């Protein structure tokens, strides 16, 4: 309860601060939306002339992409930990975090949130509606609930993986370039995994389960029954990965060495 109250306190503070720099805010939202549009055009161009890709139609692929955008937007809003090593370890900002009575990872989530990224979710839903219309998808009353569940699951998968990568900084003091690489790998999750070979498919399902952010949960709404099991695994995988990442984080924090001034 306390954490929820604190969350809204930070959100309110965030809004207040952003409103003060209104021009920046509009520029950012605009460039964000532009980025989404470019991405969408890219998808349309790439899949425009291949109507079928490993048994998936163009609109299905667009639908998956739209779905992917929603958990990804949540992830980018709340897990800005790509520069965790430089900012919190090398510069020693974690010192400050650790003297406050809130879980350290949660504090970083609160401090680094970027709510503008949530616009990506709006784009995502628009894309899904567009593709879903083309496909003539039906709609049932359970869909919003499952959608919510799958989106949260997908966000936790993404968050878990990136928290785990951030944790590397607690053990190794060298800088790694794993973070940007992971952003690239993450993109593979938004294409149907059966177009890849079985090794990549295995990796994207069980090792770096990015497939649970895009294709697996989206398959449910596309009515691809052969993937339903995976669709319903989405929240489970999300919770498992995120829990592992929290446990790792907690033991990593104990190894934090601080920055000698």
């Amino acid at each position, binding site marked *: 309860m306390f954490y929820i109250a*604190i969350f809204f306190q930070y959100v309110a*503070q965030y809004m*207040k601060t952003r409103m003060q720099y209104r021009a920046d805010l509009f520029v950012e939202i605009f460039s964000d939306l532009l980025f989404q549009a470019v991405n969408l055009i890219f998808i349309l161009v790439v899949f425009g002339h291949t109507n079928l890709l490993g048994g998936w139609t163009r609109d299905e692929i667009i639908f998956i992409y739209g779905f992917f955008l929603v958990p990804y937007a949540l992830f980018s809003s709340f897990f800005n930990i790509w520069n965790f090593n430089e900012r919190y370890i090398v510069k020693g900002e974690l*010192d400050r975090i*650790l*003297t*406050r*009575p*809130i879980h350290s990872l949660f504090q970083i989530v609160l401090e680094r949130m970027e709510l503008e990224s949530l616009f990506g979710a709006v784009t995502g839903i628009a894309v899904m509606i567009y593709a879903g219309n083309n496909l003539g998808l039906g709609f049932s009353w359970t869909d919003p609930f499952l959608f919510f569940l799958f989106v949260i699951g997908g966000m936790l998968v993404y968050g878990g993986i990136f928290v785990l990568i951030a944790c590397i900084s607690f053990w190794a003091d060298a800088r790694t370039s794993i973070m940007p690489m992971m952003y690239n790998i993450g993109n593979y999750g938004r294409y149907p995994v059966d177009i890849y070979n079985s090794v990549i498919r295995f990796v994207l399902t069980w090792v770096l389960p990015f497939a649970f952010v895009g294709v697996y949960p989206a398959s449910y709404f596309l009515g691809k029954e052969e993937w339903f099991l995976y669709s319903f695994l989405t929240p489970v995988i999300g919770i498992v990965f995120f829990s592992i990442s929290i446990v790792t984080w907690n033991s990593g924090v104990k190894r934090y060495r601080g920055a000698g*001034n």
Partner: protein
Amino acid sequence: MTDAITVRNLKKEFKAYSSRSGLKGAFRDLLTRNYKIVPAVNNISFQVKQGEMVGYIGENGAGKSTTIKMLTGILTPTSGEVIVNGMNPHKDREKFVRTIGVVFGQRSQLWWDIAVQESFRLLKKVYKVTDEQYDSHMSHVIKTLDIEPLLDKPVRKLSLGQRMRCELAAALIHNPPLLFLDEPTIGLDVLVKLKIREFLKEINDKYNTTILLTTHDLSDIEALCERVVMLDEGKIIYDGALKSLKEKWGEGKEIEFQFLEDVTLNDLNRITASSEVKWEKDEKKAIFTAFAEDNDELISLLIAKVVADLKVKDIDIKETSTEEIIRNIYDRGIS
């Protein structure tokens, strides 16, 4: 009386990696890295009672900040025992930090971009401070530290001294019984320093707040702390009253003379040949300093002799300052 801090055989080691030279060395570094284990804090033990103000001093790199970071739960000790406010700082970190306040002079504890009062407001929620508690306590803090006019400015626009006063206020929002201050007066002007000292004294008086403070400015310690703990290369070399440190280590007095006539060191040595005195000359200002044992009779005799033979313009008798005592201890060790 209860102990605010109990530290037993506390130790913190850091691995310091070194790289080998040359290309061959670089390849070997890939496989096995050379490292030395540096003991930053080496088996220290001490206790601090509730309400004490303790000065924690030592040269650069002595291990002061490392100790404070272990006491505040930021770093996990390599070995040893720490009990602060009855808790182990690393175990119940989130519960524990509610009972302490921390200020690092070198680093801001406040949010860079938001106005000071917004920071305060957030911290108030974070520490679950009620409106009544906040109003009664903080309005006083804000007034004493004179930060009212700074409240609506973002932290990044404050000067160092302004920021430090706000940091101090922020550390006290939950009115903790124990306050850790790591170089709180670094880089501040005299007025701000005085204000901060006054303030610390006041909250110590009012709430019996325990304060552990590191500083390189010994006048801070002299103004605030009866007790000092001195650290050297991770070990405690002195723990006791500031006064007895002075008595034990204050090596006599210095008497400064200025003369109306031209005087040489030889003249002075001749005049005072019968007593144990060492003379030194400050060439620029033409000040002659006599170093003598701290013995009233000897000193009055010495002055009498000099005044009888030479025309004196000014005399100044000085006790060895704490600064010098500490300098001497650093230079020569305690034994």
